[in-house]
């Protein structure tokens, strides 16, 4: 008996119907499994980074936005605080502060303004080149380097915050000093610059020709008491080079300059507790959070949503299975003439059952195979997928 052969011919002849059946079963089988893999990977990635970050200080507001921006470089920028927050921690001698300014982007990649301490804290290794040591230099994550085919000596330009703001800050062309080794974390998709470079990107600092020595009078608005004021014709540099680095300067007191958060690394557990206590004051403009707790609370919400999703998938799965049973029973009715012929030629009813069984087996096997392929692909790309989709 060639039940499998006949079943295969039947499925091949009615390709669209078979494809839809196989697709439905595959989706219904793969959906909960895929959800499980992705949620588990999200949990792993979120928890891992959160647990390795002891304390985070930022402006009062959404703790989740603060954590997501500071740890995973999400778009949601928290309200800025000033560098005074860093000095405050230094003065307390309870922890080592690492300032973060994560607001600007180069293409779609976040620019992380920080200090070299960040590299030590995250144990980031430099795969090629050197860390940023001068203004205008940047260190790119492994994925950016791979995706844009960049290496030390190449350039990346910061994106203007508002494309049509012609009075806004000019984009800064940054020289890549090095490329980080892959970490399978948000650091792979970030551009790291010195905090002062980030301030220059924000417009708090700039570089231009020395007006005192300028011979071009058309750029001078007025000269009085040793102070020279330029007009809008004065060209600002949009790249920091060895030749013009000395002409770059920041305007104002750095203590008042903005940052989005401070990573606080307590010297010990007791120092951490004391430090947290100091930010409990209701009148304080700052909040101090333990990223692991914020992420745990986020995960609890995700699990609640997942339970709802599981129930929805279960209901959709049941409905789909019922629809499949209906499809098969209707198909049997449509094939009654064929069954009658087979029976008259000399087959038993069991043969007809075997034929249907073979069709269901093939559909089940192909769906299972497809599901397996999807799961293997998902398992292989889950780290990347979760990072792109959820974090």
């Amino acid at each position, binding site marked *: 008996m*060639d039940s499998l052969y006949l079943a295969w011919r039947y499925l091949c002849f*009615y390709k669209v119907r078979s494809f839809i059946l196989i697709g439905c079963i595959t989706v219904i089988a793969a959906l909960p499994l895929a959800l499980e893999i992705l949620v588990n990977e999200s949990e792993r990635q979120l928890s891992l980074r959160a647990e390795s970050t002891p304390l985070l200080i930022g402006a009062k507001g959404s703790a989740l936005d603060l954590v997501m921006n500071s740890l995973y470089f999400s778009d949601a920028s928290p309200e800025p605080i000033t560098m005074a927050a860093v000095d405050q921690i230094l003065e307390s001698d309870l922890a080592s502060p690492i300032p973060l300014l994560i607001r600007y982007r180069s293409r779609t990649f976040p620019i992380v303004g920080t200090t070299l301490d960040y590299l030590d804290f995250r144990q980031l290794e430099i795969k090629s080149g050197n860390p940023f040591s001068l203004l205008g230099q940047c260190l790119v994550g492994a994925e950016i380097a791979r995706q844009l085919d960049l290496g030390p000596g190449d350039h990346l330009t910061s994106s203007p915050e508002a494309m049509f703001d012609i009075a806004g800050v000019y984009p800064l062309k940054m020289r890549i000093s090095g490329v980080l080794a892959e970490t399978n974390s948000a650091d792979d998709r970030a551009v790291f610059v010195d905090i002062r470079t980030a301030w220059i990107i924000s417009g708090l600092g700039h570089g231009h020709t020395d007006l005192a020595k300028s011979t071009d009078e058309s750029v001078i608005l007025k000269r009085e008491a040793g102070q020279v004021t330029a007009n809008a014709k004065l060209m600002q540099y949009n790249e920091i080079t060895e030749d013009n680095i000395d002409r770059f300067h920041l305007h104002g007191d750095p203590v008042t300059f903005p940052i989005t958060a401070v990573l606080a690394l307590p010297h010990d557990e007791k120092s951490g507790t004391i430090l947290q206590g100091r930010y409990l004051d209701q009148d304080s403009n700052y909040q101090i959070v333990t990223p692991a707790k914020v992420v745990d609370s986020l995960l609890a919400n995700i699990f609640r949503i997942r339970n709802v999703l599981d129930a929805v998938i279960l209901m959709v799965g049941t409905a789909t299975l019922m629809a499949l049973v209906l499809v098969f029973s209707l198909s049997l009715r449509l094939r009654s003439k064929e069954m009658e*012929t087979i029976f*008259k030629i*000399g087959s038993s009813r069991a043969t007809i059952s075997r034929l249907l069984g073979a069709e269901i087996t093939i559909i089940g096997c192909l769906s299972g195979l497809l599901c397996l392929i999807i799961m293997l692909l998902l398992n292989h790309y889950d780290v990347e997928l979760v990072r792109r989709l959820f974090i």
Partner: protein
Amino acid sequence: MIRLSDVRFCYPTGEFRLAIPEMSVAAGEKVAVIGPSGSGKTTLLNLVAGILAPDNGSINIAGTDLDRATDQSRRDFRITTIGFIFQDFGLIDYLDVLDNILHPYRITSSLTLTAPIRQRALELAEQLGVDARLKHHPATLSHGERQRVAICRALLPDPKLILADEATGNLDPDNKQLILDALFEATSTNHTTLLAVTHDHELLGRFDRIVDFRDFLVNEPEAS
């Protein structure tokens, strides 16, 4: 070849009754069964094929008493001894012509599909003029071609008896003659018995004998 004695049959609904006191068909004989609709012609074929079991009487086909046989042995007997030709061809639409001809070998363990059988299928297809259409599906064939494929399928297991139920009913006059030619030629070569239900009186002259179900008289055709 076929011997029916005092056969009585009634469907469970009780609406239809058939009584055949005596009927026999010799081996190699070509017999036409005629009669008005509902007179029991198709029921006769189903009884002879062992699809239906008589309420009373005996049916002996090629030495086998079908009325005493089990369902399984009747099915085995049917697939190895009888070839069926249907008015609506009964081809499987998702199989191509060659697979349709080989179909009986794929649905039962009583027949084994071997290389010589495949060769014979090709020869039959050539004999009946459908060898150029082996990879086509039934929907792409003309009615005449479909019936020729159905004849190939019926003849492939080399049956002793062919039962044809209105085999030319769906065909135009030219095709009727062609199909009958093909059927007669194929059955004559193998000395196969043919029991054919038909409404087509133009074709009756070609049969050895006519069984009229109207009054259940056995008539000899007039010599032409």
